[in-house]
Structure formats: structure tokens, C-alpha cells
């Protein structure tokens, strides 16, 4: 197997007595779509926070492309190619969809201390941003203030913003949460197209989407990795079935 792009070693995070991430070790190989599933409150979002650098970890280490990034702040991780989306939509509501994405393009273009020139009219920022919006199917809504987009469109915008940072690894926290049927199909289609070009860690409750997209699946229960395997074998895994009993249907 190739050198992992992302490697978690004995990662831990506790809130008081509540251990939310319990000795998690996980590796994500380049190019794979690695799904992380688990019941509500399993610690999936917390794990994404730790990987992205939004939350410090108590112990353990995070390696990205072979380098230890455990103590790097979030912006620096982003610059190394580690982008994320948020489970609870986090956008700039007062900016147009295009500007939301253009800002991400601007972030990696490096020169944000320019005090003159209208940023909103820069073609070399807007063109790549438009390209990202097209990829998620939002091009027609580029000039709508992001706050006025539908919930599903905001989810797509999250994805476009993530793409605009030109990540090597994209951490997606429930990109389908709360989207309508058609929107969710569109996002799944987008992810299918991105797959292979990009390494993706996908957290998702929609099992249909997970089993359709994932190369490998990790199951997180009470902050612990119960199993990591191919979708087919995860479905057959008795421990996983037990953990999900009465929770959700494993397709």
C-alpha cells in the first residue's frame, strides 16, 4: 500500500470525563474516498475538528504527507492542502456565493495585503472561483448573496469553497445533511467526479451514499474506531451490525 496521505496516531480528546476521541489511529491512502460513519454523538465532528486544527488534541499525533502537523494552526494546515467543510454550514452570508469562493482562491494566491484595487473585480480570482461553483452546480447562483441560498445550495457552496483551496485532502462533515433528494443526488454526483482526483474523508449518515462512494469505511462508536474495511466487509461485520442495531439500517 502507498504511503498514507493522512495518518492519525493514538489521537485522544476528552471533555472532562467524557472521552470523545478515544485512542483513534487511522490512515487514509492517497486517492481514496474514506468514509467515517457512526451513530450520533460518536465523535465524528470532533475528529474532523482535530484533524483540521480547529480543536487541539489531548494526546496523539497527526501526520499529513509524512509531516507532523499536530501543533499547526488551522490556516497553515489549509495551506498544506488540508481543507474541510462544516456540518453546520459556515459561510459568509453577506458575500455573494462567488465572493465566498473567490476569497478561498485569494487565500492561496498569496497576496492579500494589497490595499488597492477592487478585489471583487479581479478576473484571476473570479474565474477559478466560477470554475469551482460550476463543479458543484452553483454557477447560475454565483451572484446571489450566500445567506439567501437554499439550505441545499449552501451545502454545495461549502463544497465549492473547500475545492477552491485546492486541497490534497478534503474533509467533508455530512455534506448531505438536510439536503433535498435532488440536491443530494447532485452532491453525490459531484463527489463521484472528484473521487480519484482528490483524497476525501467523508462523514455521512446517508448509508446509500456512503456505500456507493466509499473505497473504505471506518466505523466510529463512542470515540473508538470499531473497524476499518471495504464497504462490503463492513456491511457483514458483526460488531458493526451490533453497534448499529436499532440505530440505522445498514443497507
Amino acid at each position, binding site marked *: 500500500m502507498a504511503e498514507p496521505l493522512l495518518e492519525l496516531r493514538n489521537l485522544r480528546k476528552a471533555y472532562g470525563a467524557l472521552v470523545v476521541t478515544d485512542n483513534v489511529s487511522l490512515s487514509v491512502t492517497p486517492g481514496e474516498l474514506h468514509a467515517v460513519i457512526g451513530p450520533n454523538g460518536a465523535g465524528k465532528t470532533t475528529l474532523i475538528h482535530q484533524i483540521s486544527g480547529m480543536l487541539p488534541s489531548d494526546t496523539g499525533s497527526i501526520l499529513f504527507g509524512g509531516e507532523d502537523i499536530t501543533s499547526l494552526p488551522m490556516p497553515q494546515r489549509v495551506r498544506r492542502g488540508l481543507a474541510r467543510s462544516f456540518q453546520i454550514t459556515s459561510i459568509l452570508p453577506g458575500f455573494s456565493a462567488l465572493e465566498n469562493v473567490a476569497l478561498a482562491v485569494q487565500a492561496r494566491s498569496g497576496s*492579500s495585503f494589497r490595499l*488597492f484595487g477592487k478585489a471583487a473585480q479581479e478576473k484571476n480570482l473570479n474565474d477559478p472561483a466560477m470554475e469551482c461553483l460550476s463543479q458543484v452546480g452553483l454557477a447560475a447562483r454565483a451572484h446571489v*448573496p450566500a445567506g439567501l441560498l437554499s439550505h441545499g445550495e449552501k451545502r454545495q457552496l461549502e463544497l465549492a469553497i473547500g475545492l477552491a483551496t485546492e486541497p490534497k485532502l478534503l474533509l467533508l462533515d455530512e455534506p448531505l445533511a438536510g439536503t433535498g433528494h435532488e440536491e443530494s443526488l447532485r452532491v453525490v454526483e459531484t463527489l463521484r467526479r472528484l473521487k480519484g482526483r482528490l483524497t476525501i474523508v467523508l462523514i455521512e449518515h446517508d448509508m446509500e451514499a456512503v456505500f456507493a462512494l466509499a473505497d473504505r469505511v471506518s466505523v466510529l462508536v463512542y470515540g473508538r474506531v470499531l473497524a476499518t474495511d471495504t464497504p462490503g466487509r463492513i456491511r457483514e461485520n458483526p460488531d458493526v451490525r451490533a453497534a448499529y442495531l436499532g440505530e440505522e439500517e445498514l443497507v
Partner: protein
Amino acid sequence: MTELVQTEPSPAPSLGTRVEIVPIFLFAAFAAAPLLATVSGAEGYVLSLLTRVMIFGIAAMALDLILGYGALVSFGHAAFLGLGGYAVGILASHGIDDALVQVPVALAASALFALVTGAISLRTKGVYFIMITLAFGQMLYFLATSLAAYGGDDGMTLPSRSLVAGFSVLKSDFTFYWICLLCLLGTYAFSRAVVASRFGRVLRGTRDNATRMEAIGFRPFRFQLTAYVISGMMTGLAGCLLANQAEFVSPAFMTWQRSGELIFMVVLGGLGSLHGAIIGAAAFLLLEEFLPEILHAASFFLSDEVRDHLAENWKMVFGPLLILVVLFARGGIMGLLRRPRHG
């Protein structure tokens, strides 16, 4: 889903283009005022009042740059007025009376003070930021009161207004007025450019959602600190002008009340439009000036004694009036100007 696409709201035209008429009108009014001052008969009084309005307009606008566009509530901004003022006063008392030296020194001092205090304050958020900027402001205030050589508590009178390249052009109230207008216009144009630039967009983005900005790779601190320095320098410039206008500097330039008034001007005018801050400064200073007369005139139906009382204690009305404006005119005066157009 198809309905969704069809009912899409048309792209909102940027507020900037819709109310562009306001700054044009504002600057035209400032340009026309000296002519009116001449015919009013009270030329000196009108000019000096409007000059003060413009100077505070610069300071309020500088504050708006970080408050309105960066959501950074600095409660110590009067310190920069003091720095600008004392740079002029101290240098003048040592015989260095040319603005071409005084202003750069004032700007450098303001930048340095902003850099150091900003680097510390910006590590905190919310109420803590307000408190720590207040503390730094007070620190400078007490420093000024202890400068016995430069008047201590009482401050000091300038020997004259600053020279410009050796010429005493600022002596004329008219010329000084035009210089202040030029400074106001210049800082306004500069601020407008900054706000729309790449830098300004990061600042605005951070105001709206700092986490999102970090998640796309920005480190907000550097941008906020730079904005703080720019704002401090602009306020320092206002301080230079204020000292020249009054031909006097004192610790009163930088009381915390003064810092509060600056915040008030910005909120009164409407956050985040720059010209709103100038309008807020004008409204604040003109109300402060004329409220006693207005109250006296408006209470014609009351007994003379009550009217005199009212006019004397006009501050009792001023405070609640300001509170009412903030409560009921969200978005300040600019908000009121915008509203009727919202169809």
C-alpha cells in the same frame, strides 16, 4: 427544484452604488460651507465648528474602518487623537513647528502605539478587547497628565499653528478649513479603496465569520492588526489637525469619554459605510452645539424658568436622545437614508 431556480432573487445591487449620492452630497456641502459662512456673519464661528466636524469625521471614519468593517470595538481610540496632538505640541515647544516633520512623527508614533497595543489587544475577543483598549487609552491619558514639562493636567498652548514647508499658511481659518477638507477627502478615498481591496475583503470576511476565514487559510490576526495600525494612523492625523484647530493640546484629547464619543459617532452615523461615520460626527457635534438652543425654542409652551433649566441641562436630553437613535434607527443615520429605497 425548478421553482427554486425560477424564483431566485435578482442579484442584490451592492449598497455602495445605491447610496453613492450621499458622500457626493456630503463633500459638496463641506465645499460650499465656507461661502455660506461668509454670508452668515459669524464666519469664524461657523468655520471653526465645521473644521472640528471634519476633524472628528476623520477620526470617526478611522474607527469605522476597524469597528464597522472589522467588528473591533476599540474603546481607546482617543489615545491616537492625543498622540497626534501631543506630537504637534511637543515638537512645536522645541521649535520644530513644521507640519512636514510633525505629521510624519505623529503618524509614526501612532503606528507604533497601534502596533504594540494592537498586538496585545487582538489576542483577546469581545468584552476583553474593549477593556484592554480602554486600559491602553487610559495609560496614555495618565502619561499625558504626568508630563509636567508639557503642561501636565492643564495641557499646553501652541505658539502658533504649524508651518507648512516654512510657510504659515494654516494661519488663515479658510486655508486651514480647506486643508482639513482635503485630509477628509483623502482619508475617505483611501479608506474606500482599502475596504474594497483584497485586504479589505479579508477584514470584512473575518468580521462576518472568522472561523470560515481560518478554514480557507487566512490568519485573521495579521489583517486585524494591520487595519488597527492604519486606523490608528488616520486618527493620529486627526489629532494633528485638532491640535492646530484649537492651538492647544491637553490630556482631555484622550479621555475615555472621548473614545466613547467616537464610538457613538460611528454608531450614530451607521456602521460600515465610512461616510456614515462622518455624518455621525457631524450630527453629534452639531447636536452638542445647538441642542440647548433647540430645546429652548422647542419648549416655547413652557414657562421661562423651565425653558432655561432645560437649555442648561441639555445633556439630560442629549443622552436619552442618542439612546433612542441607536435603539430605533438601526443602522444609524445611513440606515435611515437607505430605508426608503428598499421598495
